[in-house]
């Protein structure tokens, strides 16, 4: 088994390489944020972006930056970070390369509730975010309860997740068929997008992002141990069941907060952690921050493209990400030894 990636070729320099990779990813994340702030219907040079952020003035650019671009960019960053972290955690605790926020029902739960509100109660659209959050957590909880049999086994969670998602998916499809005249808003919700996301959305996500992000960082050693398998992990003194329960809840909270704001952006949670793993390796002490940074970079760049590529038409960011990200992911996969 020969490893071709540079990182694997020189194990003795790994720490240095990993720190460098994290630095590069940080630059990419900051670059993504700036790119998103500078570009849009009106292009604003970076110098002026800085000026408006750090010295307030009353220009129209000030309005654009503060009321539209900054909150939207930050919401996007948090969405990308949360979904990527959620996926990274789930891949370790479910021991499945296909684990992503979809399998714990977060997407289907938020999807159904979101579509019920958008189609049946459009007058209550202001409730979309909290209701979708409840839906996401409700579905995650249901899968949990259904999979519980004297403990949690990853396979049972995944199968229960498939069943519950199919069940809720039928509800979604049914609604879309019955109310085909009102599908447009719902469709945008299902693809996932960041248009018109603003400060209130940011505030609703922020607590989950901070708490979830910190918990993910502090759990990195436990995630490393869990990757050795349940038996070894238990032998090393890790309470496997308890850890799995707590971390599933953390992953659900992170993903639910993201999905409730941005709609069903499935791709980030599956692919970003994998891409981060291929770049930086499987040590969760580096993989967690790498996933978060890559999530931020990917979503801010994609959202910028979504806004500018076919301006004045704005594409949902989910489409851009899947379109650009899937081939890139396949490239990484082929490169892997």
């Amino acid at each position: 088994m020969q490893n071709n990636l540079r990182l694997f070729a020189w194990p003795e320099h790994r720490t240095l390489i990993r720190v460098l990779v994290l630095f590069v990813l940080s630059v990419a994340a900051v670059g993504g944020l700036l790119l998103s702030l500078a570009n849009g219907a009106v292009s604003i040079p970076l110098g002026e972006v800085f000026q408006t952020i750090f010295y307030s003035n009353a220009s129209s650019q000030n309005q654009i930056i503060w009321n539209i671009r900054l909150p939207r960019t930050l919401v996007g960053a948090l969405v990308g970070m949360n979904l990527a972290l959620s996926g990274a955690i789930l891949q370790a605790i479910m021991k499945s390369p296909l684990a992503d926020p979809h399998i714990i029902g977060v997407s289907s739960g938020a999807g159904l509730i979101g579509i019920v509100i958008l189609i049946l109660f459009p007058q209550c659209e202001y409730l979309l975010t909290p209701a979708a959050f409840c839906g996401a957590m409700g579905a995650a909880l249901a899968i949990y309860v259904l999979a519980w049999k004297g403990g949690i086994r990853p396979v049972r969670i995944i199968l229960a997740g498939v069943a519950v998602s199919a069940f809720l998916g039928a509800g979604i499809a049914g609604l879309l068929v019955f109310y085909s005249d009102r599908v447009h808003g719902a469709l945008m919700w299902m693809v996932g997008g960041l248009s018109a996301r603003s400060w209130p959305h940011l505030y609703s996500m922020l607590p989950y992002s901070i708490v979830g992000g910190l918990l993910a960082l502090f759990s990195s050693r436990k995630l490393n141990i869990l990757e050795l398998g349940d038996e070894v992990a238990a032998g090393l003194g890790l309470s496997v069941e308890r850890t799995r329960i707590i971390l599933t809840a953390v992953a659900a909270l992170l993903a639910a907060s993201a999905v409730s704001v941005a709609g069903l952006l499935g791709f980030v949670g599956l692919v970003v952690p994998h891409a981060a793993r291929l770049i930086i390796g499987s040590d969760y002490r580096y993989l967690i921050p790498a996933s978060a940074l890559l999530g931020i970079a990917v979503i801010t760049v994609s959202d910028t493209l979504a806004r500018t590529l076919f301006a004045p038409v704005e594409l949902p960011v989910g489409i851009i990400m899947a379109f650009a990200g899937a081939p890139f992911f396949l490239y990484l996969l082929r490169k892997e030894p």
Partner: protein
Amino acid sequence: MLEASNISLSFGKERLFSDLSLTIKTGEIISIIGPNGSGKSTILKALSRSIKPQEGIISLDGKLIHSYGAAALARLMAVLPQSNNAPNDLTVRDLVEYGRFPHQHWWKNTQREDANALDWALEQTRLCDLSARLVSTLSGGERQRVWLAMALAQKPRLLLLDEPTTYLDISHQLEILELISHLNRSEGITVIMVLHDMNHAAHYSDRIAVLNKGSLFTVGSPEQVINVRMLREVFNVEADIWLDDNSRPICIARGLAVDAAKSYTQPKKGAQL
């Protein structure tokens, strides 16, 4: 001292073992042997608290094993499951270092202690030269030594091994067993292992426990335990037994025992395909 008294365990309707008592003395090497499905691995799992017997108690140093905290138990007892998998970008040093997990707390600086234990474990398993290598690039025997080193880094007083020599060729089998025996003698680590090879068990253990169909057939020193009757009744084979220079028994199976052989040569009357 690890003691199981009158433990029973069933899975659904299937009785895995019942009313089994076994005492492991401090400082000994005890091997558990038995035919496939006799419950060898299961009893090892019960002793390491991976599964909880429905009846009976297991105690370690006079304290119920289920009353220990997970990390506290891992500091006393290291377990090596039968087959192990690590992410393929892990170095030997990384993996062995995970053995320090039960000793580490976020409020405590254990760096020095960790480094000492790590060096000691690598030295004992003669892995110092390989410590920067990726585990996935090692041979089977080296890999097994790495997992053993991880268990040693826990600084345990008890070592529980589930068929530590499976998948290894004969010289690597002996290498692992010599290493285990050396650790037992020089560090006083109590070893409980499940083995397939009866001759290895006889050569390296102080005592052997023979399991048959979920109950303890017999337990005692190798020369007490390994005899023609046991091999016939438990393993269904006819065997010749000699004593080696250290008066440890060596056995060679000549063939299936009469009862077992019959069932192959003479199909039951009236049996239809």
